[in-house]
C-alpha cells in the first residue's frame, strides 16, 4: 500500500464518521472524492456550427489552452476532447474566414456543448476580416465599385469627378467646383446618394446644387445604374450612389492616413486626414477631417475670376460592432463656400447674347483667393444612430435614426444695403427612422424587409428681400419594401423586390396674382388660397403621391470567368418642390422658370443586361440598358415675357414620355505584367417620344483610353497616359429663340442650344509608394490634367456660354498611410 492509499483510507474513515455525524450530502461527498482524484477521465463533446444558419463547420481548429493541445472538428462539425479533469477549460476555436472565438467552460463530468462561429461574415456584410474586401450592394443590378486606391486620386476634387471613373457616369456642372453626378443621362432628384446608409437630403433639385459630400469621408463608392437597389428608395430612376466608410476590422489596431496635395491651377491645396482605432472586442472610433482651398481657376487663356472655393469637413464615428450585435453613432459636418464665375451673372437676354458672342468672359481680373458674389455657402450636418442585433438561425434586425440639416445661402450681385444679404436662404431639416430585417439563415434564400418614415421641413427665410424660389413646406414620407435573393444553383442567382412609398407635401407658397391667373390655377386650385396680401395670394397646396416600385433580375455564370446579368426595374418618382413650385427669374440662366402644380409622378421601366469577363489578361464589362420614362419631367421653353429688365424666355416644367438607351463598356487588357491598356466608352441616346425630339443635356459619345506602365519592384511605381475624347453632341433639341434688341433695332437669334465642338484631352498620372517603416508607407502621386493646355468647353457645363473650361493643372499629392 502506498502512502496515498493509506491517507485515502484514513480520510474515508474520518469522512464516514463526519457524514454520520453531520448528515452531509452525497454531492459533497462526491465533490471531495473527486478533488482528490488524479483520474481525469471526462469527455467534452463539442459541435461547431455556423451562427446564422446552424450548419456544421468542418475543419475548425480547437486549441485547448490549459492543455496546450489541438483538435479539429470533423465532417459533422464535431470534436471530442478526452481525459478532462473537472474545472475550467478555455477553448480557442478558429476557422478560415471566421472570427476566432475564445470560450471558457466549467467541466463537471462528461458534457456536450455547441459553439457557434460565423462563417459568412463577408457575405453577411457586418464586420470585415480583411480591410480590402470589395462589397457590392446588389446582385443583379449594374453596379460598379470605386475602391479607395482609386478614390485617393480625387481627394482634392468632388464626388462628381470621382464617379466619372465608371463608364456611363458623367456630370452636369456649373463651373468646375459645382459638379453633379449624372448616371446614364439622369441627375439631381433622379439619383439617390446614400452616405453611410443615410439618404442625402440636401436640396438636390437644382442643377447648381452639388451633393453635400466630402469625398474623403468615403472608403468605397458604388454606383448602381437604375433603381434595382430598392432598399434605398423607389424613386431612383437614374440610379443610386452608395458611399461607404471603411469597414470595421475586428483587431486591436490603430491606423490612419493623411493626404496632402497642392495644385497649380487655382493655386490650391487640400489636406485630409483620418485616424481609426479598433479593438478586438468590437469597439471602434474613427475621426476624419478635411480642409481645402482654391483661388481663381484658370482657363488656358484667362483667369476665371471668382471661381475660388473653400471647403472644410469632418466626421466622427464610434460604437461597438460585433457579428452578433452592435451600435454606431456617426456625425459629419461639411461647409462649402463656392464662388461662381463673375461673368456668368447676367441681367437679361441682351447680356446673354453678348456673352455667347464674346470669346472671353467680360470680367477678367488678376488672380485672387477672394470669393465674392455670386457665390454659395452651404453647410450640411448629418447625425446618425444605428443599432443591430442578430438572432441565431434567423437573421438580423437593424434600427436607424438620422437627422440632417442643410443650410444653403446664395449671394447675388446686389446693391446698397442688400449687398451682403443672401438672395436665397433655405434651411432643410430631415428626420428619418428605418427598420430593416434581413432573414439570412439560409444564405441561398435571403430575404430583406424594411420600413422607413421621414419628416422634412423646408424653411425659406423671407429676410432675403427676394421672392422665395422654393416655398416653405413640410414633407412626410413612408416606405415599405421586401426583397429576396435566391441562389438557384451554382450558376444561377435570382432576385426580386417590391416597394411602396407614400409622400405628402404640404407647402405654403405666395403667388403673384397675375402669375396665379396666367397659370390657370384660379380655376383648379382656388380652394388652396388662404389669404390675399397686396398683389399676392398665400396658398396652401397639399399633394399626396402613392408610388410603387419593383425589381427582378438574374445573374447567370457562364463559366468560372464570366457571367451575365439581366434586370428589370420599375421606379416611380414624385415631382420635387422645384418642379412643382418654381416661379421666377433664374438669374444665371436669364430665364423665367415655372413649375406646375398639376405634375404627377414620372414612372420608369428599365431593362438592362450586362456581360462580365474576368480573365488574368482581360477584364471586360459591357452594360446595355433601355429606360422608358413615362411622364418624364423636364424644362422646356414656352415663350417670351417682357419685364422692365427686358425680355426673358419662359421655361416651363412639362411632362412627356421619354426613352433612354445606351451602352457602357469598360475593358482592361494586360499586354505584359508591366503594361496594360484600359478603355471606358459610353454612348447614350435619349428621345422625347411624343414630340420625336432629343432630350436636352444628354452626354455625348465619349471614349477614354489609358496606357499604364507599372513596375511593382520599383517602389510600386506606375505611370499612365490617358486620352479623353468627347464627341460633339449632335442630338439636341433646338430651343433657340429670337429676341429683339431695341438699342440696335434688330432681331437676333439666341443660340442657347448648339453644343460646343468635340474635344480631346490628355492626362498624365504617376505614382510610387515608399515604405518608411513596417507600418508606414508614403505614396507620392503626380497628376497632370489637360497636359496640352487645350481650350475646350463641355456641353454639360452650364457656364459654357461664358468661359472655357480649365487649362492645365499639375497636382502633387502625398499620402501617408500609418
Amino acid at each position: 500500500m502506498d502512502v496515498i492509499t493509506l491517507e485515502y483510507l484514513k480520510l474515508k474513515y474520518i469522512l464516514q464518521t463526519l457524514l454520520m455525524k453531520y448528515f452531509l450530502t452525497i454531492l459533497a461527498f462526491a465533490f471531495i472524492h473527486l478533488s482528490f482524484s488524479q483520474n481525469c477521465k471526462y469527455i467534452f463533446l463539442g459541435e461547431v456550427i455556423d451562427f446564422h444558419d446552424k450548419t456544421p463547420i468542418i475543419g475548425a481548429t480547437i486549441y485547448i489552452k490549459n492543455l496546450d493541445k489541438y483538435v479539429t472538428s470533423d465532417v459533422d462539425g464535431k470534436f471530442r476532447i478526452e481525459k478532462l479533469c473537472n474545472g475550467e477549460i478555455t477553448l480557442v476555436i478558429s476557422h478560415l474566414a471566421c472570427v476566432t472565438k475564445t470560450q471558457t467552460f466549467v467541466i463537471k463530468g462528461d458534457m456536450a456543448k455547441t459553439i457557434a462561429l460565423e462563417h459568412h461574415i463577408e457575405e453577411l456584410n457586418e464586420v470585415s476580416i480583411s480591410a480590402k474586401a470589395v462589397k457590392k450592394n446588389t446582385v443583379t443590378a449594374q453596379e460598379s465599385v470605386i475602391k479607395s486606391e482609386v478614390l485617393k486620386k480625387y481627394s482634392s476634387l468632388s464626388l462628381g469627378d470621382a464617379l466619372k471613373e465608371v463608364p456611363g457616369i458623367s456630370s452636369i456642372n456649373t463651373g468646375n467646383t459645382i459638379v453633379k453626378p449624372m448616371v446614364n443621362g439622369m441627375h439631381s432628384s433622379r439619383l439617390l446618394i446614400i452616405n453611410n446608409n443615410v439618404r442625402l437630403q440636401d436640396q438636390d433639385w437644382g442643377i447648381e446644387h452639388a451633393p453635400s459630400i466630402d469625398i474623403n469621408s468615403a472608403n468605397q463608392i458604388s454606383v448602381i445604374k437604375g433603381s434595382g437597389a430598392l432598399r434605398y428608395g423607389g424613386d431612383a430612376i437614374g440610379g443610386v450612389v452608395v458611399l461607404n466608410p471603411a469597414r470595421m476590422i475586428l483587431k486591436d489596431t490603430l491606423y490612419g492616413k493623411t493626404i496632402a496635395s497642392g495644385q497649380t491651377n487655382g493655386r490650391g491645396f487640400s489636406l485630409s486626414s483620418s485616424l481609426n482605432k479598433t479593438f478586438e472586442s468590437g469597439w471602434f472610433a474613427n475621426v476624419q477631417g478635411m480642409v481645402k482651398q482654391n483661388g481663381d481657376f484658370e482657363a488656358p487663356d484667362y483667369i476665371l475670376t471668382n471661381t475660388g472655393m473653400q471647403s472644410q469637413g469632418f466626421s466622427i464615428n464610434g460604437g461597438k460592432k460585433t457579428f452578433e450585435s452592435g451600435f454606431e453613432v456617426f456625425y459629419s459636418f461639411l461647409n462649402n463656400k463656392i464662388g461662381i464665375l463673375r461673368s456668368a451673372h447676367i441681367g437679361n437676354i441682351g447680356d446673354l447674347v453678348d456673352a455667347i458672342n464674346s470669346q472671353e468672359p467680360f470680367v477678367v481680373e488678376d488672380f485672387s483667393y477672394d470669393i465674392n458674389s455670386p457665390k454659395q455657402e452651404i453647410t450640411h450636418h448629418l447625425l446618425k444612430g444605428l443599432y443591430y442585433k442578430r438572432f441565431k438561425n434567423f437573421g438580423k434586425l437593424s434600427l436607424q435614426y438620422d437627422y440632417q440639416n442643410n443650410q444653403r445661402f446664395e449671394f447675388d450681385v446686389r446693391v446698397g444695403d442688400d449687398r451682403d444679404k443672401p438672395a436665397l436662404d433655405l434651411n432643410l431639416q430631415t428626420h428619418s427612422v428605418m427598420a430593416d430585417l434581413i432573414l439570412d439563415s439560409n444564405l441561398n434564400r435571403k430575404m430583406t424587409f424594411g420600413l422607413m418614415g421621414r419628416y422634412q421641413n423646408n424653411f425659406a427665410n423671407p429676410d432675403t428681400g427676394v421672392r422665395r424660389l422654393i416655398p416653405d413646406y413640410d414633407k412626410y414620407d413612408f416606405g415599405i419594401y421586401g426583397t429576396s435573393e435566391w441562389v438557384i444553383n451554382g450558376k444561377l442567382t435570382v432576385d426580386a423586390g417590391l416597394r411602396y412609398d407614400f409622400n405628402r407635401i404640404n407647402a405654403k407658397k405666395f403667388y403673384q396674382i397675375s402669375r396665379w391667373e396666367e397659370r390657370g390655377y384660379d380655376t383648379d386650385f382656388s380652394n388652396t388660397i388662404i389669404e390675399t396680401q397686396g398683389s399676392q395670394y398665400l396658398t396652401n397646396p397639399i399633394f399626396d403621391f402613392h408610388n410603387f416600385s419593383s425589381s427582378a433580375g438574374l445573374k447567370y455564370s457562364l463559366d468560372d470567368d464570366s457571367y451575365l446579368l439581366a434586370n428589370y426595374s420599375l421606379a416611380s418618382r414624385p415631382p420635387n418642390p422645384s418642379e412643382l413650385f418654381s416661379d421666377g427669374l433664374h438669374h444665371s440662366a436669364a430665364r423665367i422658370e415655372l413649375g406646375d402644380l398639376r405634375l404627377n409622378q414620372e414612372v420608369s421601366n428599365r431593362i438592362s443586361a450586362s456581360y462580365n469577363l474576368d480573365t488574368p489578361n482581360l477584364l471586360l464589362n459591357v452594360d446595355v440598358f433601355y429606360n422608358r420614362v413615362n411622364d418624364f419631367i423636364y424644362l422646356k421653353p414656352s415663350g417670351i415675357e417682357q419685364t422692365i429688365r427686358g425680355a426673358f424666355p419662359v421655361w416651363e416644367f412639362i411632362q412627356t414620355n421619354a426613352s433612354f438607351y445606351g451602352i457602357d463598356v469598360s475593358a482592361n487588357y494586360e499586354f505584359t505584367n508591366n503594361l496594360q491598356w484600359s478603355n471606358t466608352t459610353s454612348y447614350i441616346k435619349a428621345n422625347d417620344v411624343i414630340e420625336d425630339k432629343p432630350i436636352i443635356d444628354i452626354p455625348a459619345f465619349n471614349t477614354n483610353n489609358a496606357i499604364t506602365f507599372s513596375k511593382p519592384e520599383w517602389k510600386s511605381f506606375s505611370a499612365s497616359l490617358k486620352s479623353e475624347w468627347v464627341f460633339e453632341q449632335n442630338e439636341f433639341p433646338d430651343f433657340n429663340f429670337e429676341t429683339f434688341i431695341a438699342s440696335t433695332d434688330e432681331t437676333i437669334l439666341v443660340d442657347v442650344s448648339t453644343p460646343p465642338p468635340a474635344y480631346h484631352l490628355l492626362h498624365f498620372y504617376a505614382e510610387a509608394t515608399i515604405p518608411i517603416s513596417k507600418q508606414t508607407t508614403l505614396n507620392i502621386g503626380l497628376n497632370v490634367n489637360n497636359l496640352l493646355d487645350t481650350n475646350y468647353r463641355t456641353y454639360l457645363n452650364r457656364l459654357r456660354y461664358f468661359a472655357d473650361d480649365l487649362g492645365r493643372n499639375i497636382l502633387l499629392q502625398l499620402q501617408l498611410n500609418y
Partner: protein
Amino acid sequence: MKNLKLSLLLLLASIFTFSCSDDDNPEAVNEEEVITTLRLTLTPQGGGTAIVLQSQDLDGDGPNPPVITPMSAQLSANTTYDAIVQVFNELETPADNITLEVAEEDDEHQFFYEFTGAANSSASYTDADADGNPVGITTTISSGVVSTGNALTVTLIHEPQKDAAGVSSGDITNAGGETDVEVTFSYDVN
C-alpha cells in the same frame, strides 16, 4: 444617463416644435431692390412743358408686361431737353426711390441712352462719378429732325466696365456688367 434622457427630451421637444409650426403662415417677402418703374423727365431748355416717359412693371418677373406711357411721346424738332431719369420700387409704400442708391454707388452704375429711327436724336451725359466717368442720371437730349416711329432705349447697367472703349461716351457695346433695367420708348419728332 441623465444627459441621454435630457437629449432625448430635447429631441422630442424639437420634433414637436417642428410639427407644431405647421399653423404659422410664412410672411410675405417685400422685394427690396426691385425696380418696378423708370421715369424719364424731359424739360425743354429755355422753357416749355416737361415730357414724362414712364415704364411701370408692378409684377416684376410676373407674366404682365410693363405698362409704357405715353404710347408714343411727342418731341419738338431741333430742341435740347434737360433729362433726368428716376427709378422706383413701387411695391413699397411709399415708393422707394432707387435712384438715390444708384447715385450713392455711382461708380458701379451707368445709364445708357440709345436711339433708333430717322430723327437722328442724341444724348450727352451731364453728370460724373468720382472718377470723372458718366453716370447718366442727368443728360441732355437733342431731339433731332422731324420724323415718326423713333425709339429710345434706356438701359441701366450694374457694374459696367466704364473704362472700356466707347463706354464713357455712351456706347453700351463694350460695357459688360448686368442689365438692371432695359426700357424702350417710342417717340415722334414734330
